[in-house]
C-alpha cells in the first residue's frame, strides 16, 4: 500500500503539462519538429487568447500548428513562418511582441512610470530636507555640557 502511494506521488510529481500537439501533426524530421514546436510556443491562439497555439486544444490552434509545420517543412525560416501567420491574424498573435512604433508604450511604458515616480520622489525628498542647524545659544551649550558631564560621572 505504502509503495503504491509513493509510486503514485512520484508519478504525479513527474507529470509535466501536456502539450496539445497530437502525434499526427508532428513533422518526421526531429530538427524541423523542434523548431516548429518552439515557434508554436510563441504564437497566441486567437480563440483562447491567453494560451499559445502549442497549449491550446482549439480547432483553429491545431490548424495553425499544422500550417506552421507546413511552412517550416517547405523551407521557411522561423521569421518567414511567423510572418505568414502574423500577416493573417496581426501581431497580436505574437506572445513576444516586436519592438515597433505602435508597441513603444508597451515596451517603455513601465520604465516611464518608474522614471516619473523617481522624479516625484526626488522633488518631494528635496523639499523635506531639514533646515541647516544654527549655532547653539549659550543656554543650550550649558545644557549640553551638563548632560555630557552627568554621563561621564556614571
Amino acid at each position, binding site marked *: 500500500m505504502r509503495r503504491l502511494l509513493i509510486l503514485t506521488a512520484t508519478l504525479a510529481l513527474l507529470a509535466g503539462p501536456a502539450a496539445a500537439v497530437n502525434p499526427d501533426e508532428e513533422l518526421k524530421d526531429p530538427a524541423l519538429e523542434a523548431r516548429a514546436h518552439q515557434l508554436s510556443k510563441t504564437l497566441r491562439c*486567437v480563440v483562447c487568447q491567453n494560451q499559445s497555439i502549442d497549449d491550446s486544444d482549439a480547432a483553429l490552434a491545431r490548424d495553425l500548428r499544422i500550417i506552421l509545420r507546413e511552412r517550416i517543412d517547405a523551407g521557411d525560416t522561423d521569421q518567414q513562418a511567423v510572418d505568414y501567420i502574423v500577416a493573417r491574424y496581426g501581431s497580436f498573435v505574437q506572445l513576444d511582441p516586436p519592438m515597433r512604433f505602435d508597441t513603444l508604450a508597451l515596451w517603455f511604458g513601465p520604465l516611464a512610470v518608474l522614471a516619473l515616480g523617481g522624479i516625484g520622489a526626488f522633488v518631494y525628498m528635496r523639499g523635506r530636507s531639514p533646515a541647516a542647524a544654527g549655532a547653539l545659544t549659550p543656554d543650550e551649550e550649558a545644557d549640553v555640557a551638563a548632560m555630557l558631564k552627568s554621563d561621564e560621572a556614571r
Partner: protein
Amino acid sequence: MKRLLFILPVVGFLVLLGVFFAGLGRDPRALPSVFIGKPLPAFATAPLRPGDTGLANTDFQKGEPVLLNVFASWCGPCRVEHPVLMRLRQEGVVIHGLDWKEDAAAGQRWLAERGDPYVRAGNDPTGRTGIEFGVAGVPETFVIDKQGRVRYRHVGALTPEDWDSKIGPLMEQLRKES
C-alpha cells in the same frame, strides 16, 4: 509646485480608472482585422450550392459594398443572426457567404431548412480559405467596399442593434463613396 505634485497622481489615477472602465464594455474577442483598408487576399472556393460557381475574392470588386458572412451549421450564434441576414437580403443588401469548416452537404441542409440569404456562397471544408483572411471563428461578418477592400470586421452574431448602430450606416456611407 507642491500642489501640482499632489494633484498629478490623483489625475493619473482617475484617467486610469476611466480607461479601465471603458475597457469593461469591450469584447476582447473583437480584434481589428489586419485587412482593414486592404483588399481580401486571393482565394477561390468550391460552391456551397450544387451547380453554383462558389466564391472568390474577385466577386467583391463589383462596384457595390457587400457583406461577407462566415458561418457554419454547427455554430450556435449563427442561428441567432440568420433571421437578420434573411431580412437584410430582402432589403436588398448583397451578402456573400462562406460555409466554414464543414462539408457542403451540412451547409446545404442549413440553407434548405432556414432559407438562403446569400447571393454567392462558397464552401470551405478545411477552414483554410477563412484562415487566409484571418477568420478566428464563426460567425464573422466583413464589410467590403466597392473596390473590394475590407472596411470592418464584426465578430459574433450580427444583431439588429449591430446593424442599426454600426454596420447599416457604414454600408450606407460606402454606397455613397465613389
